[in-house]
């Protein structure tokens, strides 16, 4: 038991553990041994406009994609919930299908589609593309929390005179908020880390962080790379921690109803 956990951890952590210290290298090379410890490369990233622009782009795209994914995925989940059993199964398969398509296929398809619309290289194209991948994640997590909601709650609200929208706003949304937040975090992280589709759709102005990393990797191997990678990892880690907290806070609600 302890052995298998240890092995799994080693497998996941060791590569990170080997690379991460390089962010604090006092020298200019991406290699061991470290030439003293320093934070100079963190400063270098913060004073480097291209890196800052890439970070800003990533946030812009990820936030936009998350918002769009929330609306589309949330509506899809609500619609699926309201459908009959068989329809619901078909809808489920349909809404989840973007996850099953290889990203490279998706990337090529989107590239041509957006080219026709003249959208290639715009933020909008990236937002739409990432929302396409984020929506199924939102869909699945919202659908799960909707399924955990006793149907009598909405019926009670209806019997008390609440319209469909009112019922959603005052009863369903507050009680399935953990599902929406979980979906949002998944969608955000997905967009923030996405490379393949972004590679096809970015222009120099809309370059996201992973793409900038990719480009820098080809240019020159500097510790700034690892600094950026470390920051990405920390952000993801933080969001995953938030997810774990969400799961805990969502549990008692599911139980006492």
């Amino acid at each position, binding site marked *: 038991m302890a052995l298998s956990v240890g092995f799994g951890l080693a497998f996941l952590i060791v590569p990170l553990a080997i690379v991460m210290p390089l962010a604090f290298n006092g020298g200019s090379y991406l290699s061991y041994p470290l030439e003293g410890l320093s934070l100079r490369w963190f400063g270098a990233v913060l004073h480097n406009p291209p890196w800052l622009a890439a970070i800003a782009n990533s946030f812009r795209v990820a936030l936009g994609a998350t918002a769009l994914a929330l609306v589309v995925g949330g509506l899809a989940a609500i619609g699926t919930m309201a459908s009959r059993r068989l329809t619901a199964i078909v809808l489920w398969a349909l809404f989840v299908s973007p996850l099953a398509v290889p990203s490279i296929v998706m990337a090529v398809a989107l590239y041509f589609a957006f080219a026709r619309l003249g959208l290639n290289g715009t933020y909008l194209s990236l937002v739409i593309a990432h929302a396409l991948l984020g929506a199924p994640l939102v869909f699945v997590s919202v659908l799960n929390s909707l399924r955990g909601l*006793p149907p*009598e*709650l909405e019926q*009670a*609200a209806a*019997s*008390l005179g609440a319209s469909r929208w009112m019922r959603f706003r005052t009863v369903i949304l507050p009680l399935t908020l953990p599902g929406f937040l979980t979906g949002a975090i998944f969608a955000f992280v997905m967009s923030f880390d996405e490379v393949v589709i972004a590679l096809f759709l970015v222009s120099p102005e809309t370059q996201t962080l992973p793409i900038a990393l990719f480009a820098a990797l080809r240019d020159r191997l500097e510790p700034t790379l690892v600094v950026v990678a470390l920051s990405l990892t920390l952000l993801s880690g933080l969001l995953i921690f938030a997810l774990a907290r969400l799961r805990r806070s969502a549990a008692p*609600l599911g139980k*006492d109803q």
Partner: protein
Amino acid sequence: MSGAAGRLDIVGIDKHYGAFHALRDVSLSIGRGEFVTLLGPSGSGKTTLLRILAGFETVTGGQVLLDGRDITSLIPERRDFGLVFQGYALFPHMTVFDNVAYPLRVRRVPRAEIARRVGELLDLVQLSGLAGRRPAALSGGQQQRVALARALVFRPEVLLLDEPMSALDKKLRGDLQQELRDIHRVLGTTFVNVTHDQEEAMHMSDRIAIMNRGVIEQFGTPAALYRRPASRFVADFLGKSNILEGVLEAGAGGPCFRGGGLAFPVPGAGRSHGPVELMIRPEDAALGPAAATGGDVEFTARVCESTYSGDRTLYTLAAPGLDRFLVYSRAGGGAAQDIGATVTVSFPIRECAVIGASSPV
């Protein structure tokens, strides 16, 4: 504080679930301010009928009329019916106050009036001190009262209750039954209650509709159902009963019953031939010869079983031609009888009811 009351007419309702016929030609007229209970065994269609009244279930045929207006296909949020669910369905993320205020907020009632009316209702259900609590921090009985307050605060014309007491223990159920009756008297709202607890139905209702397999077997006052059951099902379902199967024959002084090894005149039977079922309640029969008990019919039987319950004992007897006859014996009404003993039983003819006849014998 008194509410409006609506008159409900249920006209020839049919409900199919696929090939399954859940309700068959159900018709009921529920008067303004009446307390009506739908009573029947599990699966008889009580919840289905209540959900049709609430608007959550469509009908295959028939109509629901409120004060003469057809509401069969009106959506639930337009019906303005109060509804208490079996599991209460309180909103877990809202306090007691917010739960009860919900229907008023939905109706955009001014804030000050909401506070006043919620306070009034919480007083009515004796929960004034708990307005700030969440439902999870309430006992089952308290949750039930919140659900009741929430369903009544907007002064519905009709209150629908689906087994409101089923999750509570017996003692609490008794208290709440009394309270529900008091509330009904104060508000004067039309109540339609569903239960499969016959005692609850008898205690609370003005009239009871007995349901069985999607059909209304009988609709009437508790006393009418108990004394003059329209079918053998009703006689068996409400309380304990002895059914004597036999035939009516013309006798010297009118119709005569013959069956179960007994023969006696039934002057009020209304007809004088054909098969018949007579019901006699165990509390109307007595141990002892007719002369001593004030009865008319007398026979001897063997004691098969006795069940003691403090104030009285229920004897299960058997006699030739009668494999089961139940008699209550009051405490102090004679010595206890051992199993296997031979006893004399008697009952007065005037307490017999012909099943299916609309008047007593």
